[in-house]
């Protein structure tokens, strides 16, 4: 492999990894704070993708504006679903809670499939062209994705690590009873975490629509990778999820090139089973939470 090719693959992998990181960040946040595996997370990605597609093609709005719009829409839908549905199952056995988000996923998948059929869609509006840096070529759209992911990702991590509400979320992830005893409004904090995570998912969907074709399963497929990442990164660890996402993105870029896409995925899943067997708390994770 030549060095320029190496750099090119590294760049491609970084873009995919950054996108994956934003999605996985949300899954980890919900898992850590609300103690729910959000199986419907992929459908929120799809929601953001189609919402952006619609505003771009129907209202002639720039896809760059679609990103914050998707975030706001996602946060609102996420807050509504947490308040009206997911919180009802709080305190129930794990099976019930899992099935609630899974049923939501089925409903979302069904709605998108019947509303948009199985067609692959894309649009040509928004940034276009390529950007060359030495021998590495990066599309302006990919560069946009990379930059937005960086801003959004760092922003989210700053909120979690540096603000009082972030402290409340981290405390809640460690012990619910203690958090309540410290005067932390548990339902409100959960609502915030869920809304933020779903907003991130929808924004990621907007970015997906910018660099690829979209279809009713687009988010579903992406979130499978995000789940891999969350397990590898140590369940619920936000930093672990981000690192694992970037690693998986880059590894996939190389294996896809050397073999093909399917074998790359097969290898990823094998890596995952090996991790579960040998390092159940994740490749990078230590055991967090009670």
């Amino acid at each position: 492999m030549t060095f320029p090719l190496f750099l090119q693959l590294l760049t491609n992998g970084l873009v995919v990894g950054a996108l994956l990181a934003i999605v996985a960040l949300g899954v980890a946040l919900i898992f850590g704070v609300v103690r729910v595996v959000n199986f419907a997370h992929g459908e929120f990605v799809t929601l953001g993708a189609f919402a952006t597609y619609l505003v771009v093609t129907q209202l002639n709005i720039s896809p760059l504006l679609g990103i914050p719009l998707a975030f706001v829409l996602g946060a609102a839908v996420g807050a509504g679903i947490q308040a009206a549905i997911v919180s009802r199952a709080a305190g129930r056995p794990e099976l019930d809670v899992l099935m609630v988000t899974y049923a939501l996923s089925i409903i979302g998948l069904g709605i998108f499939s019947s509303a948009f059929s199985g067609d692959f869609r894309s649009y040509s509006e928004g940034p276009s062209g390529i950007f060359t840096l030495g021998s590495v070529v990066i599309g302006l759209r990919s560069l946009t994705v990379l930059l937005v992911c960086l801003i959004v990702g760092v922003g989210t991590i700053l909120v979690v690590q540096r603000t009082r509400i972030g402290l409340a979320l981290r405390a809640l992830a460690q012990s619910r009873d203690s958090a309540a005893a410290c005067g932390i409004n548990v339902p409100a904090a959960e609502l915030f975490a869920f809304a933020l995570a779903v907003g991130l998912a929808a924004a990621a969907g907007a970015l997906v629509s910018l660099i690829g074709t979209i279809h009713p399963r687009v988010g579903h497929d992406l979130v499978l990778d995000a789940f891999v990442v969350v397990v590898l990164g140590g369940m619920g660890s936000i930093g672990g999820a981000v690192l694992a996402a970037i690693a998986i993105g880059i590894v996939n870029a190389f294996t896809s090139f050397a073999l093909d896409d399917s074998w790359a995925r097969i290898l990823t899943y094998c890596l995952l089973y090996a991790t579960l067997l040998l390092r159940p708390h994740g490749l990078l994770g230590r055991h967090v939470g009670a």
Partner: protein
Amino acid sequence: MKVERGRDLAKITWGSLAILACTAAMAALPWLGVTSYVRTLVYYGAYFLALGQAWNLMSGLTGYVSFAHGALAGIGAYAVVLALNADLPMVISLLIAAIAAGLASLIIGVTSLRLKGTSFTFATLFLQELVLLLVRKLPFAGGPGGIVLEEIFPLWLPHVLMIAVAGGATLLVLVFRRSRTGLRVLAMRDDEAAASAIGIDATRVKIVLFCASAAIAGLTGAVHGVFASSLFPNEVFSIDLSIIALAVPLIGGAGTALGPVLGAVIYVGLREILQVLAPNLHLTIVGVVLLLVILFMRDGIAPALGRLFRLKDRRGQVPAIAEVRA
């Protein structure tokens, strides 16, 4: 499996007799002159029931959710078609199918059943994808174009077999649930730590149960493979079948023997109605029904009906252990 208490014994005896009678009656349908529409309906009812009971045996009893039962059935279907095409007899082929699915379940079982339920659920979710990818890649599995069963069997054969599998699986859940081991498994679902404290090897019990559950799913898929006779990977390993496998028992009543029967009847009815009224919304409606049942009936329609008619389940009267401790 040692069964405790006389009341339970009576319940099991009568329940078993009823299941056997129903199974025999349904299996006899091809010779009773009913229309092929009714026969097909009953066949699919049995198919979904068998799959649902397989899921129920693991997930319903332990609370560890499997998303892979559709894929396990798919492995059974592929195995039976490959075996029959290699001129092996039917019984051996079905056995191979059950074993193949059982072996696949060990990948999940050994890697994730020591861990918490969430890891197990993820492991099953990934198996679903992994198997589809592998089948499309492996040359002997026919690639994306799938495989076809060379010999054509009479339709009554899969019909009788499927009803036997469904009846057998229901019987197994009924008896196992009230056996000593079954009670221990239920105790484990409620409080794994406490169950371990009274000497239950939780991991081993779960692995064995998941293996048995997978073998039944494999057998179910195998019979359906004989029925369908041509297999396309994207269809056989679509997530839809895994959804049905868990929706049927959850809607009817997970962890009970009769719940999945009710769930299968409801699901087959719903499916028929939706095929006419709104074929596009099939998945959405299943999701909505599932969501409503979980949110408002908790443990499914059968137990809810039972409470309505005051047929009390003894388990329901004991407060959850966690609550008392707090």
